[in-house]
């Protein structure tokens, strides 16, 4: 078998194993949350009788071991169960939320990834001169500010003062694609500012590393334009670290944006998960955890595979 194929299969198997381990952790984690589902659902106003009735109805009296395997096998068949708190089908509810989350992440990624890489190349081209300094200063400032503050500042100017975009990014099925784009403009801008610096700095550092090589000097002596050297000759050899950082940031855009969702009232997975943690709605928390773990592991797996494939020594073994 081709060694690359073996490597990829090994990676995939490792990913699956990791996912299984994550499922155990998620299950155990939800079991040791303090408090009690019935109390959380019924709130401060619950009477003892109502609590007991609800606990019995939810089947909380069975052993954790049995519940884990029941849950895992149903999840594998795509059945995530129903939410304890409002009786809605979890797969259906999550479907809509996940779609929204992926939409926002995709919009933010479409802006931020090309922009970050372009700015990274530009920074290398004008290394240690004012464009490099300016790019670094702006991106590092935006990553250093807390997300919610960045959100409020942008909301204040773009929505309250200038009225360009809505401050409430509520999207629903009745909207056209352009209306949706308009609605998510502000959160997408904030997310871009948040992830830009990391990817841009990594691109810059990885390419600068390659720029020390002898073959770059050869290219310079051939009289190639400096930007062509960076983009065509240095960049391909710096792909592996860049892809890793891009994937980490993409994963972040999917699983880590709950603060932005709250600030811009965006109906994504983050808020959905937090609400259900607060209500001890264990099946939903587990389902969300599993989906997040899958996305995280999947994207990192993809980064690994791209790094392997981008390495000519692995693609063409002797």
């Amino acid at each position, binding site marked *: 078998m081709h060694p690359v194929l073996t490597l990829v299969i090994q990676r995939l198997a490792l990913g699956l194993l990791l996912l299984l381990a994550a499922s155990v952790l998620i299950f155990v984690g939800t079991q040791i*949350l303090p408090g009690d589902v019935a109390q959380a659902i019924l709130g401060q106003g619950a*009477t003892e009788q109502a609590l007991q009735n609800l606990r019995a109805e939810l089947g909380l009296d069975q052993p954790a071991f049995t519940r884990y395997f029941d849950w895992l096998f149903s999840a594998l068949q795509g059945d995530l169960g129903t939410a304890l708190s*409002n009786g*809605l089908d979890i797969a259906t509810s999550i479907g809509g939320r996940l779609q929204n989350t992926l939409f926002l992440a995709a919009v933010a990624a479409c802006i931020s990834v090309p922009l970050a890489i372009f700015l990274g190349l530009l920074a290398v081209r004008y290394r240690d001169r004012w464009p490099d300094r300016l790019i670094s200063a702006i991106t590092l400032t935006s990553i250093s500010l807390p997300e919610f503050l960045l959100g409020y500042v942008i*909301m204040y100017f773009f929505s309250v003062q200038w009225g360009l975009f809505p401050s*409430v990014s509520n999207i*629903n099925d009745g909207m056209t694609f352009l209306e949706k784009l308009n609605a998510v403009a502000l959160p997408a801008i904030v997310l871009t500012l948040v992830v830009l610096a990391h990817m841009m700095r990594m691109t810059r550092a990885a390419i600068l590393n390659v720029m020390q090589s002898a073959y770059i000097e050869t290219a310079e002596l051939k009289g190639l334009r400096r930007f062509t050297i960076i983009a065509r000759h240095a960049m391909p050899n710096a792909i592996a670290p860049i892809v890793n950082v891009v994937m980490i940031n993409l994963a972040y855009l999917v699983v880590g944006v709950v603060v932005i969702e*709250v600030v811009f*009232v965006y109906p994504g997975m983050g808020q959905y998960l937090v609400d259900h943690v607060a209500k001890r*709605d264990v099946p939903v928390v587990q389902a969300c955890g599993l989906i997040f773990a899958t996305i995280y592991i999947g994207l990192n797996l993809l980064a690994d595979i791209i790094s392997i494939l981008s390495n000519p020594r692995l693609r063409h073994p002797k």
Partner: protein
Amino acid sequence: MNDEFRYLLTRAARGKLDRRAFLGRAAALGVTSTAATGLLSKAVLAQGPRRGGSLVMGMQGGESTNSLDPALAASQVPYVYLRVSGEPLVNIMPDGSLDGRIAEEWTASSDATNWRFKIRSGVEFHNGQTVTAEDVAQTLRRHSNEESQSGALGIMRGITDIAVDGDTLVLTTDGPNADLPYLLADYHLMIQPNGGMDDATAGIFAGAYKWVENEPGVRHVLEKFENYWDDSAGHFNSIEMLVINDSTARNSALQSGQVQLINRVEPRVAGLLSRAPGVTVESTAGRGHYVFIMHCNTAPFDNNDLRMALKLGINRQDMVDRILRGYGSVGNDMPINASYPLFDDTIPQREYDPDQARFHYERSGHSGPIDLRVSDVSFPGAVDAAQLFKESAAAAGIDINIIREPGDGYWSETWNVQPFCASYWGGRPVQDQMYSTAYLSTADWNDTRFFNDHFDELLLEARGELDQTRRKAIYSEMGMMVRDEGGLICPMFNDFIDAYNDQITGWVTNPNLELMDGRAPVLMWSAE
């Protein structure tokens, strides 16, 4: 005001001239837009409600876990959407009187144990069915079932029999209860077809608005129910409720005009928000109060001198000024204030008195730190309030040790479990209900562990007493007992702070609960 301006104003108020055109023409006549807006909103209010337009609300207190089953409602968004889509037997009016809704009229037997409610004829459910006495009876049966998970189970306990006699609902209680109709105004008790026994989450009610879209924790869309029986309510064509739990996001949405009405404005920004153009902030004194509660049966709080020392060692005015920023009033260590019917305003106000506090503290013989448990969720600003309490008590030689508890699980692990913690109450429409809920010896939520036989007797006596003067005297005596012997430290009553912009009008102050007792969307109307 010249004739031409007056003419423009009338046309604008009737909706014949749009707002922007009106302001433009007013400016041409030399009237500033602030003055013109003010005059216009007065003129619109004087014109009375106008049908049409749509309302978008931004609300705190909604979660993805919310259900359409009225029994499970516990937070603000379900509370308001039930008020908007549902119809109860009765409503409580701003002045504390009762307004018959599904119940047209009611009578009680002379001992107040047997009540007859005549059901209004011609009221329709959203599915076209007519509301019958049987539907009402089934609704009450579902909520009073011991196996139900209803938030109204506690208040339904006293009802021993629910029967139907033609178009009349007959309720029998286990003892005299002069306030029974008030209990039936509870927001969980929205009438459903067959009482919701078939499908409690169907969203079929008999209120002014019917359900169009329900995305829990995100948005709720309702439209006017054309066959609603009462023309004096339900002026908007549609109502959209957006769940905006973040305070800053809510304020921005109101300022940018994306929503017209918001709840829960934070006291620290209320003053700033009221200065924004076109925004009106409404602060309503209500019955909600923030409390520190001690278990009267647990050491060291089983000593009344220690309880009194702590009550005297708290600076109430300071808390109203700093925690509520003035949007509230001082408490008097009883759960009742002037917003309640039959309140006795001659009861002296307890003041901060470190010397007296020290005297009682020394007489209690207690020494060492006293643990006070508190969390961010106890009430807004609870942790800061506990710090103020610690400082003011320290001046009397009392050492309060603040323990911060996580917000998660606070209501199951700390409140009503630990002997000394911070909490809040939303208040109840009448004194009887407040005392029965939390101060009767047998109450589920007797969170101060207040066991006093004489108090229980007085409560039952007042419940059956139809002579209001005598009743007021009994409530006064009970208030004094809680104030002087109870485990409640009540430093402040909080106001409800809501805000709306100039696209809507018709606000009426209602002390029952926030957003005009949750009925602002149904009672206000479009000003455009």
